[in-house]
């Protein structure tokens, strides 16, 4: 496994996890047993079994409404675990304190970009970097890397295109330096440049030892990045035979 510190030290804008490999444990990052999660009264996840080891890059595929987004939300500590058991990054997510701890360590890039329309790109990034307690010195290089440091810097988010919004949201996630990346359709709405940026992001995150879950319909593209594919449908994982042998996948 490549040394994560090499990349992150040379280029502050590069993606990295927080010394995850250095801790040296092989304990799974994601560990779900018969996990059920509700959206309102609807069981979006109907008993998910999934184990993902440190440093793995996993593609999650499945038809629309299969529960991919909810799975990522569950892994982020946002959705609550109605029944079953789950540990993310070593925290028990059936417990509110555990979920709270998980939230600080993950980077979730969902459908929503969670940007304030009335603020400029830079104001948004600076607010979230402050709120996330991310490293302020990363802001400039990361904005440069995502092409947000020119004219776009002082444009209000309301005036951005969908792709530009996603770039901004990605920049914020990169600044968080998460140990677990949860990317929900990360390529959607992006131009070829942006899509390459996403791919690089995933590669670098993996090299630095972070774990990445990607929910995507772009199977061909993501299969190149992911070491393993998990198929999910009807709120369950449909690759039962692979469970358990995941820790040595990377």
């Amino acid at each position: 496994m490549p040394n994560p510190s090499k990349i992150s030290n040379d280029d502050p804008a590069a993606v990295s996890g927080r010394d995850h490999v250095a801790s040296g444990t092989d304990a799974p990052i994601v560990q779900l047993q018969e996990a059920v999660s509700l959206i309102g009264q609807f069981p979006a996840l109907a008993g998910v079994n999934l184990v993902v080891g440190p440093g793995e890059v996993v593609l999650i595929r499945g038809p629309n409404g299969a529960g991919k987004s909810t799975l990522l939300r569950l892994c982020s500590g946002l959705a609550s675990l109605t029944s079953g058991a789950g540990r993310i990054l070593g925290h028990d997510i059936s417990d509110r304190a555990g979920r709270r701890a998980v939230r600080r360590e993950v980077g979730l890039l969902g459908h929503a970009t969670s940007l304030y329309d009335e603020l400029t790109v830079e104001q948004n990034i600076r607010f979230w970097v402050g709120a996330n307690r991310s490293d302020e010195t990363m802001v400039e290089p990361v904005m440069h890397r995502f092409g947000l440091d020119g004219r776009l810097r002082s444009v209000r988010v309301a005036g951005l295109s969908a792709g530009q919004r996603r770039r901004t949201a990605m920049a914020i996630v990169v600044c968080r330096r998460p140990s677990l990346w949860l990317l929900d359709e990360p390529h959607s709405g992006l131009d070829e440049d942006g899509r390459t940026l996403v791919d690089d992001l995933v590669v670098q995150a993996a090299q630095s030892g972070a774990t990445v879950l990607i929910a995507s319909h772009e199977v061909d593209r993501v299969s190149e990045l992911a070491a393993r594919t998990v198929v999910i449908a009807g709120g369950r994982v449909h690759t039962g035979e692979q469970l358990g042998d995941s820790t040595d996948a990377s």
Partner: protein
Amino acid sequence: MTADQIADGSSSGLSVEDRAPGYKAPILSTGSEATRVIGVIALLSTAAMLAFGLLISPPDLFQGDSVRLFYLHVPVAIVALYLAFTITLIGSVIHLVNGSTFWDLLAGAAAEVGVVFLGLTLVTGMLWGRPTWGSYWEWDPRLTSTAVSFVLYLGYLAVRKLDMDPAARSRRAAVLGIVGFANTIIVKYSVSWWRSLHQGSTLKPLDSQIEGLMMFSFALGLVSMLSIFAWLVMHRFRLAWLQHRVDAHRLEAALLERRSEGEAGIAKSGLAPGGA
């Protein structure tokens, strides 16, 4: 008689069981041994209260017959304001501390019955006010604070009916049950001060001394209302509990349906399980 119907509902489901020993009749009501006893107490005390309150006790020297509303209005108010919402408060606190379903449901049950009693408090208060004060509504501190509490707990019930994650909904309701109680106290005191700043005397509901038969009628009214309240809260709680169980079953069914939908989806889309 209205009270007959009350007791009827609680006992009929079980009386079948008594008739045929050994045969387990399907239990279809939310009644039980305890509610049957309470139902009988409610029935008897209500009948006695009607007899004493409406017929046997004498009219008041000053208020005449309208004093008879006292035996009804004050017990209803005591049950609503002091008993029901205190249970809601306690249930809410315990639910927030340890997530107990029992206390959550009990808090909700007490609040709903409490709102009914509070509504009746307002109605009987207004009907009593017309002959004694000459108007249905006075901007009296008690009336005003009661009206505000009524709206507040209607809001509480509205929160309990929200279509959202049940756990989060229970927590939000619990917060409202706690802060709402505090607010009820604040409203009560603030409107008292407001009047006391303006006019020296508040309206005394009962000028003459209460004694003898009147006191007895009042006590009967209290017993009647307390037992009806207990009966209603127990049934309402059981309703909530049944609903909780039904929801759990619905979830099971929804889970199965969701899983089979998954199998079908996989087959149709031809998504083969991916390899590592």
